[in-house]
């Protein structure tokens, strides 16, 4: 069991209804954690999605550990 902080931006922030949340998870990877939250918040299916752990882009198979800050990154649209 890991206690992590998840921050939400843009369309995911609006769907989650919050900017961030702390939660306990048994997810073994970023992918599993997203699946857990997707079901809970009813996230939309996006054309693409990336994940960052502790301010670094990471692979979806990366483990999530106690104290991590996780951000799911919808398709970017700067400029």
């Amino acid at each position, binding site marked *: 069991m890991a206690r992590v902080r998840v*921050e939400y*931006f*843009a*369309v995911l*922030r609006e769907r989650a209804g919050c900017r961030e949340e702390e939660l306990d998870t048994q997810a073994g990877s970023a992918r599993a954690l997203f699946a857990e939250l997707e079901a809970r918040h009813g996230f*939309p*299916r*996006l*054309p693409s999605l990336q994940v*960052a752990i502790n*301010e*670094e*882009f990471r692979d979806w198979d990366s483990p999530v550990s106690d104290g991590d800050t996780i*951000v799911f*990154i*919808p*398709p*970017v*649209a*700067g*400029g």
Partner: protein
Amino acid sequence: MPAQFTLSRARLDPAALGCLLADDSCGALVAFEGRVRNHNEGRPVVRLEYEGYEALAVKEGTKVVNEALARFRIEHAGCVHRLGPLALGEVAVWAGVSAHHRDEAFAACRYIIDEVKARVPIWKKEFYADGDSGWVNCNIR
């Protein structure tokens, strides 16, 4: 140029930004301004809002500018992106490069704006004339 990639909630001043790149050894300065358009994919747009994952945006944007400095024979480069609400015509992003020669300045400026748009975690919400709004590139499938 003190910082190579920054975020700003205040209006951008392209002239002042260009001055940061000036240098008597540089014969060429190429600057790109991305402005808020009054339309996108055929829909009239009335205003925009940009949101960023700020810590990672600055990291990734700085990486892009440093890549440009390493790949091209240029002297100085910088990029600034707005966050928050923007009106039509306002400058949303500015990228500028100075170099001894124009070939490299054009190529590097193009590289920076292309990579920033593709990689930096910033999102754009468009507000349309009909009252609707939406996050660009996030169309639900």
